């Protein structure tokens, strides 16, 4: 009776606006992040289609492009300056808006309070602000597509002086300012989020939920939040300095004596390499800000669907912490040929190779987790397995790039493009898909379509390999990245046929993603109603309603008696024992 009473009271307080728009409920905020992320993902993917069309059919008029893009594809031919804007925006959108905000924003928000047995975040209003600042960042980024000189076009790394001198490329004009403002907002949003995730994890755990009983997801999100808190402010400083260089005539990054387009540049005394240090000081941890949440979601899903405890839980948690710590001191491996002090290069080789230690442990533990399991192939499980299948080639090819002399040859070639798409782009996207398929029933109270999910998986998995695996060989042959067309050099023109193949694969794989988008929105309203615990899972969020009520738990907070992955315990009645089940019952 009391439960009923509380629910009525809660429902009474909420209007449409406070419930769905300016909500302080972590579950609503998570869903807002997810939907925004999905929209950004679709935009980012469409941008990549344009890029692929240009690379497959350079200098061939495609009149339909002019209809879509207007002056950026006059006569149906994509302009080189717009191609540069495309690579910039594709990278920025995918890395930050989809795989940082969309992934970590969604699942940190959704899972931390639910999996630790809290009613909400520590600071619900900050949490709401975090989303709306992110939303503002999104709006600014979107506006930049419609300014006259086009969106930012200096690569997602925005290396000055290209990004600092407004006349260096059309994309360095207003578009770059908007990019910087948007990123500054984005960072503020991330910091607000990270503060919340850390505080909540440390202080709001329910009775019995010791740090050693946290699901691996919470550990992942927690480490990610710490990483973000330590590294994002550095890029914020960098972005503000770059805005000053561009708008107020300071010279942090622009040296003396430059001549651009025949005209002297009125800056003096800056250093462009400083930006690279600031950028990669965030940029590299950022790779793990993207990868660790994916890793942790995958761990949880593998254990649940293999019906086995996560292998060597403590070591895995240690590995995640280790990856997080090491990721702060490896940024220089992006700069071996930048003109940075070569002794620094030597040091970064060692730290970079060291990070393969925790990473290899984690991958090994995950593979052993499915060893002798009783695997259940839900779409989430397939995507989790696919994550491993994609991460392995990505991680292994990192060894080439970590080795400074080999990187001289491979730096800024398609080898790098293939490498990071496997390691942190598609694999993290697979982690995110896995997470969405797995927690959708909890988030929206309805099941997603299983068949569509499986088709989506196989289309994506095979597609990703067809798109990115050949790029390793393009890179080995020396083909540089960020080229508008490969017709100008003898050593790049041998890949004309391969480029067509990759483009066709990308178009089909992209179309398969639309199945997911359809499945996502259709199931939100029309999917079959979900049970409390459709996957027979042990963690706390599955012990409450789907979707959980406001305040998550009814009047009493759950109490935790055991670790997160008690699957297939010998002697137990079911093949899973939820964390809320007291230990006494199963002691012999």
């Amino acid at each position, binding site marked *: 009776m009391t439960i009923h009473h509380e629910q009525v009271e809660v429902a009474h307080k909420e209007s449409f606006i406070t419930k769905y728009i300016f909500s302080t409920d972590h579950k609503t905020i998570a869903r807002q992040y997810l939907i925004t992320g999905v929209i950004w993902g679709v935009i980012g993917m469409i941008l990549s289609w344009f890029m692929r069309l240009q690379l497959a059919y350079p200098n061939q008029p495609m009149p339909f492009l002019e209809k879509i893009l207007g002056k950026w594809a006059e006569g149906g031919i994509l302009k080189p300056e717009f191609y540069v804007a495309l690579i910039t925006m594709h990278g920025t959108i995918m890395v930050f808006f989809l795989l940082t905000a969309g992934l970590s924003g969604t699942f940190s928000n959704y899972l931390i309070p639910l999996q630790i047995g809290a009613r909400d975040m520590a600071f619900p209003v900050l949490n709401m602000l975090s989303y709306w600042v992110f939303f503002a960042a999104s709006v600014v980024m979107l506006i930049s597509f419609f300014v006259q000189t086009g969106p930012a076009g200096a690569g997602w790394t925005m290396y000055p002086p290209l990004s600092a001198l407004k006349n260096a490329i059309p994309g360095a004009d207003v578009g770059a300012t908007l990019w910087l403002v948007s990123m500054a907002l984005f960072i503020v949003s991330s910091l607000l989020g990270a503060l919340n995730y850390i505080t909540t994890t440390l202080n709001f755990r329910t009775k019995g939920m010791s740090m050693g009983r946290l699901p691996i997801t919470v550990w992942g999100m927690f480490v990610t939040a710490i990483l973000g808190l330590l590294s994002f402010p550095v890029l914020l400083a960098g972005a503000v300095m770059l805005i000053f260089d561009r708008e107020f005539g300071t010279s942090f990054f622009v040296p003396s004596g430059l*001549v651009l387009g025949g005209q002297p540049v009125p800056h003096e005394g800056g250093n462009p390499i400083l930006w690279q240090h600031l950028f990669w000081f965030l940029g590299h941890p950022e790779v793990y800000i993207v990868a660790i949440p994916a890793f942790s979601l995958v761990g949880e899903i593998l254990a649940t669907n293999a019906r086995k405890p996560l292998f060597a839980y403590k070591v895995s948690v240690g590995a995640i912490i280790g990856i997080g710590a090491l990721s702060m001191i490896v940024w220089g491996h992006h700069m071996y040929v930048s003109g940075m002090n070569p002794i620094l290069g030597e040091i970064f080789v060692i730290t970079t190779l060291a990070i393969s230690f925790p990473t290899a442990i984690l*991958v090994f533990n995950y593979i052993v987790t499915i060893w002798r399991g009783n695997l259940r192939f839900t779409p989430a499980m397939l995507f989790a397995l696919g994550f491993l299948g994609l991460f392995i080639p990505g991680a292994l090819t990192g060894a080439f790039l970590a080795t400074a002399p080999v990187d001289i040859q491979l730096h800024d070639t398609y080898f790098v493009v293939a490498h990071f798409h496997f390691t942190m782009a598609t694999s993290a996207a697979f982690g995110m898909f896995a997470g969405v398929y797995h927690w959708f029933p909890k988030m929206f109270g309805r099941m997603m379509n299983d068949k569509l999910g499986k088709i989506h998986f196989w289309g994506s998995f095979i597609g990703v390999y067809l798109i990115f695996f050949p790029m390793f060989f393009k890179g080995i042959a020396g083909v540089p990245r*960020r080229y508008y067309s490969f017709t100008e050099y003898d050593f790049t023109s041998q890949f004309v046929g391969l480029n067509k193949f990759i483009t066709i694969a990308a178009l089909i794989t992209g179309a398969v993603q639309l199945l997911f988008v359809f499945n996502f929105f259709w199931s939100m309203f029309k999917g079959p109603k979900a049970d409390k615990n459709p996957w027979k899972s042990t963690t706390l969020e599955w012990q409450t309603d789907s979707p959980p009520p406001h305040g998550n738990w009814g009047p009493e907070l759950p109490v935790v008696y055991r670790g997160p992955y008690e699957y297939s315990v010998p002697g137990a009645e079911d093949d899973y024992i939820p964390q809320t089940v007291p230990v006494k019952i199963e002691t012999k």
Partner: protein
Amino acid sequence: MSEKQSKFHGLLFLFFFIAGIIASVWVVVRNGWWMPELASDRETIDRIFITIFIIAGILFILSELTLSYFVLRYSGSPSRKAFYLPGSTKKEILWSILPGTLVVIILEISAEFLGGASMWGRIHGEVPKDAFLVEITGEQFAWSIRYPGSDGKFGRTDPKLISYENPLGIDITDENAKDDIVFPAGQGILYLPLNHPVVFLIRSKDVIHSPYLPNFRVKQDAVPGMTTRTWFIPKKEGEFELACAELCGLGHYRMKLPVVVKPMEEVQEWLSEQTPAVDLYY
């Protein structure tokens, strides 16, 4: 879920990886997709690359096949229960740390001890005294070339002197500058001597560029405001290409410089036919 459907995904994984590996090898071998022909003394890079390629290749095939095999072998059935591993025994911890340690040791050995570190030190260390000097200056979207002339010294440059006819801003009042041989951006081909150390002094006039010679395993960013340096020995005669490897603007994709390697005498002879700076700038 039926057992049949369960096996289906496992089989598909296995099939995909085996077919994929075979198809990749076939396509790559048939098309000869490999590193561009080596034309310099940097064969260490190739050696380390191939070593890591073999190790990573084996690890890749092993781990993907293990993964697919597990997926097939342990696909679920209602009649079976998973094997219970408690999750934190000492044995588990030991086992889990082992492969990571192995991977790191293998990688460190291949990367550092096969000559990687000494190679890196050599590239960035002392330059041979009699080396052939060339200054390459990047600008949107072409390369200027400058040879020091018979005195072996580059003259002073000053950005304030840069103009249409003096694109490098050479100070012709400097004695060292008078015999410099200059090819303004886009107007010259890079001649290099065979079997002789070549030093690149690399500069930029506007944004970051990066001269990249795929055949020579050479790449070094051109950073505005400073002079970077790299050196190597061309080992093959012929024509090659220098590309830009750092995004520098809308013409990045065709910022090309043809490179010609010829015996030292021919290069010297060719240089002696060129007009020195003193006759061009006054």
